[in-house]
Each structure stands twice: as C-alpha cells, then as structure tokens.
C-alpha cells in the first residue's frame, strides 16, 4: 500500500508519526465490509468511531474489522452539546478503547452541526489537563484555532463546510490563515465532497484531511477512498513543490525568438 508520507516529510500528531495524511471517519458506511474495503483503499491509518449507548453485539463487527486492519481507532464525542458532556464521553471512550486520543466535537444544534466554540475550548482545556491528546473539530476562525493551541490541543481540525454537506472548502483564505498562524498540525475536517476538495486542502497547507461522508456515502466507496488517497498525496506534493504565481497575462513557455 503506498503512503502519503516519506522520511523527509513526516506527519506527526501528538506522540505518533503517521504514514498517511488521510484520516477516515467510519460514519455512513452501509456495512463493516464496505468500511473495511474503503479503509484499505484509502490507506488511512486512523479511523474515527462514535460512542453511543451499549446494545448487545452491535459493535463486534466494527471493532473486529478495525482491529484486523491494524488502524488506530480515534473516538469522537459526537452528539455532545456541552463541555461537561464531551469530557464524560471522552473519559468513557478512553476507558472502553484504551486510547488517550480523542476527536473533540461539541456542536450547537442538529441543523448545522456547527461547533460551539465556547464549550469546545473549555472541554479541550479540561481534557488536556486529564492527559488526553485532543484533536478538536472547530470552525475556520483563526482566533479559536489559536485558543485551542494555547490550551494544549495536539492539532486543530477546522471545517471546510458543515458536516456531511459536501460543499468543499467555503473559505480557503481562513484555512490558509490558520495554517500560517498555529504550529500544531491542521487537519481539514468536514465538508469534503470529492477528491479535488481534499487536494485543495492539502495545497492550502493543511497537514492532513479527515473525511467520512464523501467516501462512505459515495456510490462506490472504495473507489472514492482511493481517489481521496491520491488527492491527498497530490495536494501535499503540490504544496511542497511550490506553485507558480498567478498572472493576469500570458507568459510564454516557448522561446520568444523568431520562427519563420
């Protein structure tokens, strides 16, 4: 399986060097088999899961599939509306899954699923103090990203557009500004609809992309997962290569000396 990282371009989050800059959410997959094929095609090393009230037997297929794939499971706090709820869910996730990593989500309402950044920063600070590696899903506001870095988050994960919307990156300038401002990894999270969105995130300087819906609800999830893998690699390489400046007029790529 080819990877998106090379020795001269490592991707480090918290205490770990990851071999892929694509993180995959497990939400929306129609079966564990579909998810498994998508994870393999994506090359992702990190796969998110949500925490919900226990029902007998329901998690067995998912957790067995992820264990077989040898990926790092990243629990999220989706469904939480307050810092207090999110802290408790994170603690339960750490207990159930044995990981200090948490994708911190505190959202305001079901209609937009936009982060409640007041509660988010409070929860992040509390969880860092409790020894978590916190990866917060946040808005594309650079000031909030700075606050999250200041309280000790291991990365910041700004949205490109609302969760599941597939609208792409609505404010590229804001993402660029975050990348230029914070030192922790910037992981574009939410809003990716297709491969070019993921490539753009990387071209803007994001360190990685986290997506779910664009793959799991595609007509052919594994095919789209492979497309995302290539897009992230291409976008990262393009960012590192340094694009040419935009010009208003032509600049000849052939010699200007006379021909006939």
């Amino acid at each position, binding site marked *: 399986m080819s990877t998106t990282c090379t020795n001269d371009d490592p991707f480090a989050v918290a205490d770990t060097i990851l071999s892929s800059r694509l993180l995959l959410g497990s939400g929306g997959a129609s079966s564990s088999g579909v998810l498994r094929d998508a994870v393999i095609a994506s090359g992702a090393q990190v796969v998110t899961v949500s925490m919900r*009230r*226990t029902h007998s*037997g329901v*998690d067995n297929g998912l957790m067995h599939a992820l264990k077989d794939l040898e990926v790092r499971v990243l629990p999220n706090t989706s469904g939480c509306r307050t810092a207090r709820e999110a802290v408790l869910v994170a603690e339960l996730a750490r207990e159930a*899954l044995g990981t200090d990593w948490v994708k911190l989500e505190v959202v305001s309402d079901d209609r937009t699923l936009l982060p409640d950044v007041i509660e988010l920063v409070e929860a992040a600070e509390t969880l860092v103090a409790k020894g978590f590696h916190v990866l917060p899903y946040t808005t594309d506001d650079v000031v909030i990203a700075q606050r999250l870095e200041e309280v000790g988050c291991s990365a910041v994960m700004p949205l490109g557009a609302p969760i599941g919307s597939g609208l792409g990156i609505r404010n590229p300038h804001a993402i660029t500004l975050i990348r230029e401002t914070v030192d922790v990894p910037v992981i574009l999270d939410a809003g990716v609809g297709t491969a070019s969105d993921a490539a753009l995130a990387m071209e803007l300087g994001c360190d990685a992309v986290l997506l779910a819906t664009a793959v799991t609800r595609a007509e052919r999830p594994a095919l789209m997962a492979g497309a995302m893998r290539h897009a992230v690699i291409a976008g990262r390489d393009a960012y590192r290569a340094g694009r040419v400046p935009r010009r208003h007029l032509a600049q000849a790529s052939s010699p200007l000396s006379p021909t006939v």
Partner: protein
Amino acid sequence: MTITATLNGTPQTYEPGTTVAALVEEHGWREQAVAVAVDGALVPKSRWQHAEIADGSDIITLSPMQGG
C-alpha cells in the same frame, strides 16, 4: 426487596448489592468494548467488582459505533 436504577434511560430493578461488574455480565457486555458512568462520573473497570449500584442511580454505558 429490590432497588431501582436507570440504565441507558430505562428503569431497571436490581437486587441490593448488585455490582457494576454483575450488571455488565448480566447484559452480556463483558466481551465488548464498553465503559460505564454512574451519576455522571466514570466508573473505571478496575472498580467494577466493588462498585455497588445504589437505589436511584443513573447508569450510562457507552460503546463504539460507526461515526465521525
């Protein structure tokens, strides 16, 4: 004589002295990834054997599902 507690939002009756470990066992959750909170506080697995369920407790158990 039994006690009443809420498990994941549903009222349940238990024998006095029932532990969190016994509750998890009774529901067949021992082999699953599961974590337990009672009255809004995590009960670590290391304490399950000794944590007795009190009358009126609000018990939440969470497990990983697809999501995110």
